């Protein structure tokens, strides 16, 4: 094998599993360390720079970082990364004064954002801060998009949205409330230099099965119903409620229904429990609140009497694998199941809808009939018109919308200055030794055996009494510090220098996880097999050195390294060093990207 090129910014980035998995590449271990040091401000700002909505995401993020967390491969549970974000948001002081402000001299470019969801707000924040005049339109009277209109208040209180939407707009963008953009042509005619479409995926899928029309009064589309609950148009629901669907929306529907008078609330899903789209913790929370989840049932008809819904008929199915190994549902051949109920909420998916975009504007469509968007630049085929968030590739989540927003802002900046959209600015990286003394390191390298701390919740009865009572209380300081210590500091890299190594084996002997081996060089699959502990996780890189004196190579399997620093501590020659790798993804702005002022 060739020696690993650690100069490639991706190499050490990949080792930071959480940051690599985060769509916005939030520097997770760095902010967790700041929390442990009591620097909540710093922790918050690091988050704010990357993901714009730390307090919101600390409560609602889909947290792709957590399944990626290295700790989850060493014991059952990853670090509670998401809830630590909330700790930073909860414990910080007033940070308003620390945020960037729009420069006095504007750059003369005007950008319009359609919709005020997380994608648009990110574009607006990034561009206004560097001198753009940004106008954000939303048909709603308040900014926030689905974060405000869909996510129930018991998961995400309004104050948190107000605060962070406020910060995003505080860099100088203008929010125009209650203005629905009815025509893209007309908007273009207003003379903007670029337009960002962040209108989300607002269309809830319906179920065209018998009885749908007759029972219409008591059969509602989930996201429309959630919005009407938010806008105060809906205050009650029947005693027996059936929610159709197994995703996030279904979970929010059933839990909201429990708070509006639903006593017997059943979520009925086509798939099995494990295959449901909702996250494990959402299902647990729903079940904890007395919601029943029924699986392997496909809705066949709504039953009704005198124009009133009486229940739903389901066919029982079971999964089989087809010849391509794909799962298919086939009738189980058992009698149908009838579930009587007073109301039904349909939560079987969302779709994009662009009734306000004229077909003859020249925006090319893809096979599904939606605008074809470049996944790197977020440009549509119409120069100057960019898409992001759910509007770009269908419904995802907040953190993805934010990540799209940053990239679209870079593209808009490039577009407005006549630069190629393909030239993506590189990230800022830095690698600094953490050695403080002979056996002293500037990070807390001791490994705690603490198991994941559980976030305390309000008592169930109290939670169900009020739609606005936030269920999660957030970590106490003590729990937060315990949880923060579980982080393995995966950004503190083990950096190896072959010429310094005297092959004493001290590192090999001390490594608690048997990560390090000195072996004869060979092709990668052979090398992986020849190590002291075979490197079987192919998703994880191995670090291969230049040959040492004996002509063997040092190979370190990154997979389970604890970043405990013992290898470097026991190395007599400093051939190993623990070095902190900082990587900040580029954001729209300064032409010399690495000289961009940082706010952390």
């Amino acid at each position, binding site marked *: 094998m060739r020696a690993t090129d650690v100069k490639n910014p991706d190499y050490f980035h990949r080792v930071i599993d959480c940051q690599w998995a985060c769509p916005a590449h939030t520097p997770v271990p760095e902010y967790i360390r700041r929390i442990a040091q009591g620097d909540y401000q710093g922790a918050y700002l690091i988050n704010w720079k990357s993901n714009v909505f730390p307090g919101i995401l600390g409560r609602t993020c889909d947290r792709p970082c957590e399944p990626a967390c290295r700790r989850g*491969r*060493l*014991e059952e549970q990853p670090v509670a990364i998401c809830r630590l974000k909330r700790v930073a948001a909860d414990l910080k002081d007033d940070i308003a004064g620390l945020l960037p402000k729009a420069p006095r001299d504007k750059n003369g470019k005007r950008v319009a954002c359609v919709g005020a969801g997380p994608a648009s707000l990110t574009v607006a924040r990034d561009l206004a801060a560097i001198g753009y005049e940004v106008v954000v339109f939303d048909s709603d009277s308040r900014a926030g998009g689905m974060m405000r209109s869909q996510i129930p208040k018991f998961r995400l209180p309004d104050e948190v949205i107000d605060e962070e939407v406020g910060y995003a707009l505080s860099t100088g963008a203008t929010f125009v409330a209650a203005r629905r953009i009815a025509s893209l042509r007309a908007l273009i005619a207003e003379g903007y230099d670029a337009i960002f479409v962040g209108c989300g995926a607002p269309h809830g899928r319906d179920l065209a099965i018998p009885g749908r029309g007759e029972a219409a009064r008591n059969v509602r589309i989930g996201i429309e119903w959630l919005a009407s609950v938010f806008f105060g148009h809906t205050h009650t629901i029947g005693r027996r409620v059936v929610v159709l669907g197994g995703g996030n929306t279904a979970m929010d529907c059933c839990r909201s229904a429990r708070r509006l008078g639903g006593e017997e609330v059943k979520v009925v899903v086509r798939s099995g429990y494990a295959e449901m789209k909702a996250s494990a913790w959402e299902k647990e929370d729903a079940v904890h609140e007395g919601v029943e989840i029924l699986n392997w049932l496909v809705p066949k008809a709504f039953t009704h009497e005198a124009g009133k819904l009486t229940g739903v008929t389901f066919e029982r199915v079971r999964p089989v694998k087809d010849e391509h190994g794909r799962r298919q549902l086939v009738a189980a051949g058992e009698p149908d199941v009838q579930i009587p109920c007073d109301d039904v909420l349909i939560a079987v998916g969302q779709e994009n809808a662009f009734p306000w975009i004229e077909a003859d504007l020249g925006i090319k469509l893809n096979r599904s009939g939606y605008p074809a968007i470049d996944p790197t630049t977020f440009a549509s085929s119409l120069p100057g018109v960019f898409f992001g968030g759910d509007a770009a590739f269908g419904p995802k989540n907040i953190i993805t919308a934010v990540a799209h927003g940053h990239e679209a802002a870079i593209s808009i900046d490039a577009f407005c200055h006549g630069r190629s959209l393909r030239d993506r600015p590189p990230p800022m990286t830095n690698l600094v030794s953490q050695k403080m003394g002979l*056996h002293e390191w500037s990070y807390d*390298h*001791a*490994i705690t*055996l603490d198991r994941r701390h559980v976030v305390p919740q309000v008592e169930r009865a109290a939670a169900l009494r009020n739609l606005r009572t936030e269920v999660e209380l957030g970590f106490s300081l003590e729990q937060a510090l315990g949880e923060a210590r579980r982080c393995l500091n995966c950004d503190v890299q083990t950096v190896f220098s072959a010429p310094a190594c*005297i*092959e*004493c*084996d*001290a590192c*090999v*002997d*001390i490594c*608690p*996880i*048997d990560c390090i081996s000195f072996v004869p060089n060979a092709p990668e699959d052979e090398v992986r097999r020849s190590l002291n*502990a*075979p490197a*079987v996780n192919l998703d994880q890189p191995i670090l291969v050195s230049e040959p040492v*004196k*004996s002509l063997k190579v040092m190979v370190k399997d990154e997979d*389970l390294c*604890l970043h*405990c*620093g*013992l290898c470097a*501590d*026991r*190395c*007599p*020659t400093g051939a190993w060093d623990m070095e902190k790798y900082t990587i900040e993804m580029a954001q729209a702005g300064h032409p010399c990207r690495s000289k961009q002022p940082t706010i952390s």
Partner: protein
Amino acid sequence: MTFQGKPKFRHPSIPTNTLGFTRRDYEGSMSTLCAGCGHDSITAAIVHACFELALPPHRVAKLSGIGCSSKTPTYMLGQSHGFNSVHGRMPSVLTGAYLANRELAYLGVSGDGDTASIGLGQFCHVMRRGVRMVYIVENNGVYGLTKGQFSATADRGSKSKKGARAADEPIDLAALAIQLGATFVARSFSGDKGQLVPLLKAAFGHRGAAFIDVISPCVTFNNHEGSTKSYDYVREHNIAVSALDFITGREPIEIDYAEGAALAVTMHDGATIHLRKLDAEHDFSDRAAALTLLERCRETGEIPTGLLYLDDDVEELHDTLGTTARPLNALTEAELCPGAKALEAINRGLR
């Protein structure tokens, strides 16, 4: 010194032995030796060997004298019996322990100062008596603990860190052990676990005095240009005269080298040593040949490693003394103090 303990996390695929232990269960506390000391590698090799042999940790006794090397029993076998004795006096304490209880596996850990200087007399006698043990000298050519003075194994002409020349004739502990009647004698290098671990396993399987002289660089005081015990020097001058696999009776025998090239020696308990001669001339069962080999290498400046001499037809200490097979602590008071009549009988026999 490293202040942090070794984290309890271990690799999920770490193997277990027949006792259900992993290698980590044979470790001791965190080493306080200099980072990079050869002694730590020997510790790791001992841990490997005991794990692979599935020795019950509570059936092992580790004994040592004084020195950096003699500190290492603390860093291995945390659940075994241990005795850190006085400088150079480990052999007599070990002999006493062995007399009292022959059922334990005895591991004597010593340094070149502890053995070849202050403890030379004790070393000679413990070898002569055929005490069943594994005696390891972690040989760095200096007194590491007292800051690097030459020991009696420093080669004549080699240089100290400050440039002083070793003027005296060195003691070759392996040659001495052969002369004095040790029945398993080997030399190895701390930087070669592939060789050392099987040697240690075979030594534990040997029913007499097994001695291994392990060259173990002192990274702080004897790892410079001019030293003959540095990592670089030993790597350059090391010639392996044999390679060995130790196979306990329980394991299936899988040998991947050519038929005929290997010599199988069956040990008293059914285990087998498979020896591959890398030096075709050498006869492992011939004391004179072993001594000649050592002498020849001394002249050429080479360091012969591997098993040098083996005699498995052993008469060990308990055989010669006819002592009780049961540990003293398992005897009843009546057996231990048979009374005046028994004493009288003994005295009569001596008249």
